[in-house]
């Protein structure tokens, strides 16, 4: 490399770092503003910009106090909702992950009639607005399935489990289409000779999945898992409809939405609420980051 090109490449690195820095700043500033706002007193949030904090620093934990401990009759409530969120989220991530991985493998590596059309159909189902699915799914739980007067499936009577099972079921249904699309894209790129060789050696599909596929697509699974985790964690609509709005089963988002007050006049609490609810997804993301850093697309294996 000659001197001129070295200078050029150094300049390019500088420019690159600068652009990256600008994007990072643009993306972080609004969030930082909200974080700062969440520590400011209510009347100041509503009347001055968060940057005025640097001129007249005035911090309070009041918003967090209200969100976490609330007024006397609902003390500690947010923790109950937090636990609900965890109970809702974990199975809602695991089920679609496993079902989609199996389906994506079959669609990518097994040959059967109509395969491509089934995949296209699954792909197209991504567009179904889940609002349109709420009513039929809810009546599936509350009334079962009846075709021409014949009860194929009775109403679900699971007692206390009901809200959680419903919400797991709903999230799983809604996630599958995207999950299969995403995972199929990775599975299809796995080296075919590896799988062929294993088949020739007499391995069953179960064994192939466990020994060959899973380790290779682990990063893809992790990617889907984190997005599904975020989606379920931040979901309000599905939670509201299927888990109800009480501390027995509703997720934290439902509680946060309620805290805005009947006429939305208490929205300053949401500034703190947003950061309370972001902690767990952030920890999950950071702890899963090493999976993303290693090869995600199977493109790496091909070479």
């Amino acid at each position, binding site marked *: 490399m000659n001197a001129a090109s070295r200078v050029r490449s150094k300049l390019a690195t500088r420019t690159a770092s600068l652009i990256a820095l600008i994007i990072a700043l643009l993306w972080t500033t609004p969030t930082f503003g909200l974080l700062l706002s969440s520590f400011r007193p209510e009347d100041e949030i509503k009347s001055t910009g968060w940057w005025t904090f640097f001129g007249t620093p005035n911090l309070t934990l009041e918003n967090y106090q209200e969100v976490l401990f609330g007024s006397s009759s609902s003390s500690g409530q947010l923790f109950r909702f937090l636990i609900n969120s965890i109970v809702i989220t974990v199975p809602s991530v695991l089920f679609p992950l496993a079902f989609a991985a199996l389906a994506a493998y079959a669609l990518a590596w097994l040959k059967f009639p109509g395969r491509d059309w089934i995949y296209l159909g699954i792909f197209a189902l991504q567009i179904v607005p889940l609002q349109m699915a709420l009513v039929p799914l809810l009546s599936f739980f509350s009334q079962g399935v009846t075709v021409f007067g014949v009860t194929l499936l009775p109403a679900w009577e699971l007692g*206390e489990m009901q809200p959680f099972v419903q919400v797991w079921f709903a999230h799983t249904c809604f996630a599958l289409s995207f999950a299969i699309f995403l995972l199929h894209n990775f599975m299809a790129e796995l080296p075919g000779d590896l799988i062929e060789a294993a088949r020739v050696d007499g391995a069953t599909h179960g064994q192939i999945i466990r020994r060959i596929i899973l380790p290779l697509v682990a990063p893809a699974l992790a990617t889907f898992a984190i997005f599904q985790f975020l989606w379920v964690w931040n979901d309000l609509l599905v939670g509201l409809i299927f888990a109800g709005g009480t501390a027995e089963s509703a997720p934290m988002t439902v509680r946060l939405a309620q805290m805005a*007050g009947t006429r*939305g006049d208490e929205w300053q609490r949401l500034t703190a609420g947003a950061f309370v609810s972001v902690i767990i997804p952030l920890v999950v993301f950071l702890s899963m980051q090493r999976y993303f850093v290693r090869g995600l697309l199977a493109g790496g294996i091909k070479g």
Partner: protein
Amino acid sequence: MSRRPLLVGSIGLALLASACGTSQEQTPQATGGAPAPVSAECQPFAKYGKFEGTKISIYSPIRDKEAELFEQTWKQFSECTGVQVTYEGTGEFEAQIQVRVDGGNPPDLAFFPQPGLLARFAKAGKLKPASPEVTAATDQNWSADWKKYGTVDGTFYAAPLGASVKSFVWYSPKMFAENGWKIPTTWAELMTLTDTIAAKGIKPWCAGIESGDATGWPATDWIEDIILRDVGPEGYDQWVDHTLKFNDPKVVSAVDKVGAILKNDKYVNGGYGPVKSISSTAFQEGGVPITTGKCGLHRQASFYANFWPEGTKVAEDGDVFAFYLPGNDTSSKPVLGAGEFVAAFTDKPEVKAMQLYLTSPDFANARMKLATYVSANKGVDISLAQNPIDKLSMEILRDPATVFRFDGSDLMPAAVGAGTFWKEMTAWINGKSTQEALDAIDKSWPTN
């Protein structure tokens, strides 16, 4: 706070009600023996009956603090009658109630703030008619006007609950006293006052109609108030039914009368800028400039008392107060208001008992003792009002001279009342002509 111990073994048994937010001891399950002697504090609830081990669910748009106050209010009822109440408040009530009902999972009771929405469920056969007891209690405690809004096609379904008075103009008593301004009692006086304030170099009016997905409603309240005054109560009813069209000259002139204030840069928007700032100012903040002397008047409902910055004294001799938005002359007193209605999706006896209790003055009084609350219930003790504006509201509601009409956008089909009416009035504030806006609303009126 104690909570009932939950047993792992009881999973699968739908025995447990949610004790969300309540802090009572578990009432013992009915054992089938002789009824327990009624304690003194349960005496007033004896008439509702005993329903040990039952539970009912309530779905409502009222949430957070106000929801907790409700739960506190009926705690005693719950303990004495044995009815466990699961209350659920949501900001998406209008959309969610339909999903829950269509999905076959309706609540036992719902608090409807829109009689129009209530009518939709009644017509679809989803609601249970009110019991004879609830009907009798409603006849006794509410005016015929109020009962009408819970009645669909001649069947009475839902008794009113809370209320709010919308025909109020907020002002600063201090600013008025310093300048020697008087409370106007006719529309002409109000406009003279407007000019006087403007001459003083203060923008006389301020307004905010931004309200997320309900943006525009404060503007429609304005319009309704003026239609009620200019076209008269009967005309107002016809307008709500769409027998009087939006583009009828009478309605057009009423809207223009509002436009003379809201679309006039000389009169608005105190503290926020030009006319257009109205549509981007949150309604919660619409009147706040009154406290800083940048705005003279703000037309908004009684509940606006909750939106003033902390430490603002709401009283006739305080920092802010409200006067009745005057009619065209002093002889008539049309009042625009709103409220919730309690409708039942099931007719279990404990649901009827709860409905009856909510209809009683006992409930309204107990609720008023806790915090700010307005009820049109004739049996309430006005002296229990927590603040002067609640007191004034209830006095207006009870005044025999008052001609009460419900917020029209809550009565119209939702496609108009929560759709084009809000939307077109927002566009109107932003420069669309009155005729164009009203024509568009007429065109959007559902044909079936």
